């Protein structure tokens, strides 16, 4: 229980630290996102290895996505993904209606523009986890009203 507080505080401090040391502007903002995303990627790789060392082999892509939505998400964010949708052609949309890293932010529209700062690490986390399960992907996130968040996973065919 208490160690969750440590991760949340560490994540917030990482976001703050990355943006504080950056300048203003589009290019610099992109650099911050990349930095946070690559940290998340590395953590996602490590975490999925720890997580799946005793599990059975996944039978297909959808099975992997379900694992991410249930077991992985519950461990990291303390609840399951609320909704998983797919077009069965390699695009998956994961909807979390109360995303853990956003619930401490104001629910109004005032800080909506800052929400993306708190999503980059998690995009990397998903991409890193999938990478170590043999899936290459592009992950993007969007928030239209706090604290709900949509992660779109585009699986890339090799």
């Amino acid at each position, binding site marked *: 229980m*208490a160690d969750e*507080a440590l991760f949340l*505080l560490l994540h917030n401090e990482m976001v703050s*630290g990355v943006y504080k040391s950056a300048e203003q502007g589009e290019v610099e903002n992109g650099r911050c996102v990349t930095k946070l995303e690559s*940290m998340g990627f*590395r953590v996602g790789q*490590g975490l999925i290895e*720890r997580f799946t060392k005793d599990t059975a082999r996944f039978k297909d892509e959808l099975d992997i996505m379900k694992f991410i939505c249930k*077991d992985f998400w*519950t461990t990291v964010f303390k609840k399951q993904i609320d909704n998983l949708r797919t077009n069965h052609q390699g695009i998956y949309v994961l909807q979390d209606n109360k995303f853990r890293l956003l619930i401490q932010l104001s629910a109004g529209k005032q800080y909506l523009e800052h929400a993306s700062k708190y999503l980059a690490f998690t995009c990397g986390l998903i991409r890193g986890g999938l990478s170590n399960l043999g899936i290459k992907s592009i992950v993007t996130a969007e928030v239209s009203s706090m604290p709900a968040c949509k992660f779109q996973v585009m699986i890339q065919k090799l």
Partner: protein
Amino acid sequence: MSRQANRGTESKKMSSELFTLTYGALVTQLCKDYENDEDVNKQLDRMGYNIGVRLIEDFLARSNVGRCHDFRETADVIAKVAFKMYLGITPSITNWSPAGDEFSLILENNPLVDFVELPDNHSALIYSNLLCGVLRGALEMVQMAVEAKFVQDTLKGDGVTEIRMRFIRRIEDNLPAGEE
């Protein structure tokens, strides 16, 4: 057959590994961002301070600890309640100074360094320096200025990991501490 979800101790272990791995990714990134280990150490301490000033609120809300009456009692709370609550370890308290203003925390194991080895070109890196900042920030919020530093570290080949704590002064004013 659905895959059995993790429960209880397994889930708790995964949670703590999430923190450990995230911390490792942070240190790696800071080593890329800064040119030398001393700057990384300073940044870890600074980030730890900012975490500490917030963590103390969580700690006081969660525990039933009342006001500590002296530094010896503070040491007990840090080692037996706070470290246990957040890192799952209970350091030993030792090496008290005769004046009672300095002591050491001996960490038999340090969960932050699971999965970690230090390369030769980072010999001056104090890998877990975030902890010193956290301690300093948290104690400042309860009106205690302290110095905290690593004097032994298993990552550097020492037998144990030791944090030396020194009481500087009681902080008189009641203004909230600002971020560094």
